[in-house]
């Protein structure tokens, strides 16, 4: 029995050690940091909740939080909608299915930096092809480096482009797992396509939709690279998101305590945003059991 215990410990030890050393341990240290004032290299002084108060009293933090919430909610729901539509389209049969799958998955392989190169070029006010198209049909251009709202639109577009393959694949796999007999029965009963979707597909896909939403909400909340590489949070800190705010506090303003507090607020923020979905998922799991 003792040998068995050693084996069990040994098998989970490498994974747990990595997680402990790189994520859990540092996260604990972060709690300590958030209650102290320290700039890099200087001795720390205990300040209680002062760092949290400072961050929560900073208008830039609230703007970053609002920006993040808007982008995340728009991006994730757009992805769910498009991903679901595409999953249903693929399930109903598309020409050259394998090729089309590869086409849809392709952006998954693109790095954030390369994606920024692509979208920056396409929307460049002077030479971009999307800009030329917008101009041709008389729409306003995306002046993302000058107008904050445009910068956010571009960040959102880019995020959807990069992450739609992930959302689509989860929903498509779930749709393929639905039993075909249900649809045959529905057809025999004379159900229209819309009724089949409303009464069969959608209810059965709810768990997959919730899982995809949860994954994406939590991950999208970490949004950093796209914003940093496009606008660096500018102009005048107007397009900052929470992760960029945290980075600037720590590595530009040298306020590690405030940045640590921001880190915990970030974790809480992503959980709050995800809470309704988590709650629904728990209920769905209970109903299924």
């Amino acid at each position, binding site marked *: 029995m003792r040998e068995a215990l050693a*084996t*069990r410990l*040994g*098998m*989970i030890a*490498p*994974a*747990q050690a*990595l*997680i402990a*050393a*790189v*994520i*859990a341990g*540092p*996260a604990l*240290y*972060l709690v300590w940091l958030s209650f102290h004032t320290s700039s890099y290299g200087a001795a720390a002084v205990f300040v209680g909740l002062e760092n949290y108060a400072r961050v929560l009293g900073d208008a830039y933090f609230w703007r970053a939080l609002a920006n993040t919430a808007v982008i995340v909610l728009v991006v994730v729901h757009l992805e769910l909608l498009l991903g679901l539509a595409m999953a249903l*389209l693929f399930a109903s049969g*598309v*020409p050259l299915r394998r090729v*089309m*799958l*590869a*086409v*849809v*998955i*392709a*952006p*998954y*392989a*693109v*790095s*954030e*930096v*390369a994606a*920024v*190169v*692509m*979208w*920056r070029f*396409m929307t460049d006010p002077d*030479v971009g*092809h999307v800009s*030329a198209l917008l101009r041709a049909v008389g729409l306003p251009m995306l002046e993302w480096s000058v107008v904050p709202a445009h910068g956010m639109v571009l960040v959102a577009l880019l995020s959807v*482009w990069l992450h739609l393959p*992930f959302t689509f*694949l*989860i929903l498509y*796999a779930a749709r393929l797992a639905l039993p075909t007999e249900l649809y045959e029965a529905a057809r025999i009963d004379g159900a229209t396509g819309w009724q089949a979707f409303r009464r069969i597909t959608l209810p059965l896909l709810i768990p997959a939709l919730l899982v995809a939403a949860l*994954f994406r909400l939590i991950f999208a909340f*970490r949004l*950093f*690279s796209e914003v940093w*590489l496009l606008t660096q949070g500018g102009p005048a800190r107007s397009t900052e998101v929470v992760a960029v705010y*945290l980075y600037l506090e*720590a590595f530009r303003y040298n306020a590690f305590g405030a940045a640590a507090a921001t*880190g915990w607020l*970030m*974790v809480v923020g992503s959980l709050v945003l995800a809470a309704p979905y988590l709650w629904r998922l728990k209920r769905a799991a209970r109903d299924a059991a």
Partner: protein
Amino acid sequence: MRRRQFATVGKLAACALIALWSLAPIVLIVTSSLKPENEIFAVPPTLGFSPTLKHYAALWERWPDFFAALGNSLIVTVGATLIALAASIPAGYAYSRFQQRWVQASAFWLIVVRLIPPIVVTLPLFPLVNALGLADTHLLLAVLYATFFVSLGAVVMRSFFDQVPRELDEAAAVDGAGRWMTLIRIIAPLGAQGALAVAVFVIVFAWNDFLFAFIFSATRAKTAPLVLSEMVGNFDGVDWGVLFAAATVQLAPILVFVLAAQKHLVAGLSAGATKG
């Protein structure tokens, strides 16, 4: 009859739209990297151009950094993949076979911890890494990338090992093989599909990541995305041709890899999403 034709046309149009959305940015970059300057900016984009490699030559000449960084990316990616697999295969096996409450609780813990965003972890790690002399090393980046996929890796491996009949374990035990031997010789090879899926996730992440490279590497371990970002950052004089060439070089191998490993990506995602 007309209705069916209408539906087919609609479907084809939808597919064309999806392909345009998905591929246009990629195709534009790759083709533009092969175009002479004056054609890069042509509206609408030209298709029948005479390809030139001059931007690639310019990239080679002006950004030797970039090719060194590609090498770094390769080292870090391979290292991260090996570490992630070495940690998640035994963990996945343990979570599949050992039902003790503390073992299963530690599986749950792996998932919970992943709620902490990577950028949050960079803060406490930064002074630590400097103190240990690990800043700007390949090892550090490989360990970081591996760790952030160990949780998913363990979950995916567990669901693949769950498909391997336990009778095989028992037969091996009767033959006198220990648990480790059973895992290495018999079970792990049968879970190779799962290992491939995990590898795909780690490889894509390690090859493409910007955040960790940006914060933890400076010169020695600088990865390709980081150098690419420096080229973008050259605000006034963006040399689009060279930039496109670099983006293409960074993108091409991973794109080919992902499309080749598509099947495993899908299998891994559904295993990770439904069981996780």
